[in-house]
């Protein structure tokens, strides 16, 4: 935990520096008769962020805050696996939106989560995998007319064009 506190403050400090550098693309000073320039707001606030990071590091050094005193492991093995699997599956699901679309990716995500992580029965898994895309399609694409990503054009043309004809 102690190590994590240090790393996080250091990374956020570097990020604040990057934000300051990026904000400086626009004037960060005071323009006479006009007030602050376009980059001033993010620049000076990022500077405050940097100061906060330094203070956090000082607190870390003096062991003032609970995370900087704790010897607990920040992410034990089991937690890393459990959280990593979930976060990873989300990333894969979103990446799949580009290829097989929302309606292809959702059932796969459901099968992975409900069956593999949740260890529920196959009927429960099948029900979730079927209900999720159907309910989403009717609520978003049909009722609210918010078109969700369909993936490659070929999928939309072969599967969804007929569906549009029926429901829209």
């Amino acid at each position, binding site marked *: 935990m102690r190590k994590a506190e240090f790393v996080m403050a250091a990374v956020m400090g570097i990020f604040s520096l990057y934000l300051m550098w990026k904000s400086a693309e626009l004037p960060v000073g005071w323009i006479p008769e006009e007030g602050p320039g376009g980059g001033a707001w993010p620049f000076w606030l990022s500077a405050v962020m940097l100061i906060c990071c330094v203070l956090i590091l000082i607190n870390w050094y003096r062991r003032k805050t609970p995370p900087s005193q704790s010897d607990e492991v920040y992410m034990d093995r089991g937690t890393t696996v459990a959280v990593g699997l979930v976060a990873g599956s989300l990333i894969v699901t979103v990446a799949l939106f580009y290829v097989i679309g929302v309606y292809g990716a959702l059932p796969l995500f459901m099968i992975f989560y409900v069956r593999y992580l949740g260890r529920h029965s196959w009927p429960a898994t099948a029900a979730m995998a079927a209900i999720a895309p159907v309910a989403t399609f009717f609520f978003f694409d049909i009722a609210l*007319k918010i078109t969700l990503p369909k993936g*490659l054009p070929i999928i939309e*043309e*072969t599967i*969804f*064009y007929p569906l*549009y004809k029926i429901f*829209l």
Partner: protein
Amino acid sequence: MIHSRRKLLGLGLALGVGLAAFGLPKTAMAFEPQKPIEFVVMAGKGGGADKAVRFMQSIIAKHKLAPVPVTPINKPGGSGAEALVYLKQKKGDNHTIMFTLNSFYTTPLRQPALGVNIENFTPVARMAEDTFCLWVNSDRKDINSVDDFVKAAKAKGKDWIMAGTGKASEDNLLTDFLNSAYGLQMKYVPYKGGGKVAKELAGNNANSTVNNPSEQLGFFEAGTTKPLACFTPERIGLFKDAPTFKEIGKDFVYFMQRTVVGAPGMSKDAASYYQGLFTKVFNSEEWQGYMKKKALQGDMLSGSALMDYWKRERDIHKQMLIKMGAIKG
């Protein structure tokens, strides 16, 4: 990267399915949209352009002019830059159209890094041209003409506040014109959206504005604000008492287009489909009534006539931006 891979994969699959479907009669018929038509709006929800798009959407829905729904998508980023890039990337798409204003010319000129060439877009239909007038609050009983206005603004110098929508926008161009034509030093304060600008004038938080008539109409009818002169070739029917700038010796006419644009490389059939669709919208009773009520002008333009109009307007804007110092020549 993702884009090109996607295309390649798509091509492969399309080939496969195409071979499988070989022999079926090819649909060489006129274009019919197969999926919801994406109507990109260059502004956020609730803005003037957004309202116009949702109005057209409702006309199409009411008269069942299209077999599929039209779905507005807002891409408000970077004075239209986000919308322009989005449309550019939709090259060859037959189901994406966009509603544009004058940022269609100015944004690609000011941000050449976007790589947007408006000549590549498909001209669909110019639905109207919006007009501009110079407005002051009715509390200013001493200002009843442009001459009074010039006198008052000169007296206040840099403390005369002109409110407008965004930097280097239509309002900013007009403010610069007034400043140089009459030797004024008005201070231009940008706000988000024309409705907000109109309100600042009505609440006496700004001294003058160059709003579209539609934005000030409510306040005008309530007697809160008044137009002094308009940037039009002829007087606007609603404001019979306000002269044109041409009449008072400054030949300056300025419009804002309200135009429907198609994705670049749209098929010819699709382009003519949308031209037909928006001709029907234009001729509908609702749209004509809307134009009249909002003091919109202009005939419908489409095809190459619209493209010529764009090129002409872009050159005019280029000159204005150079003069303003926003871009280099």
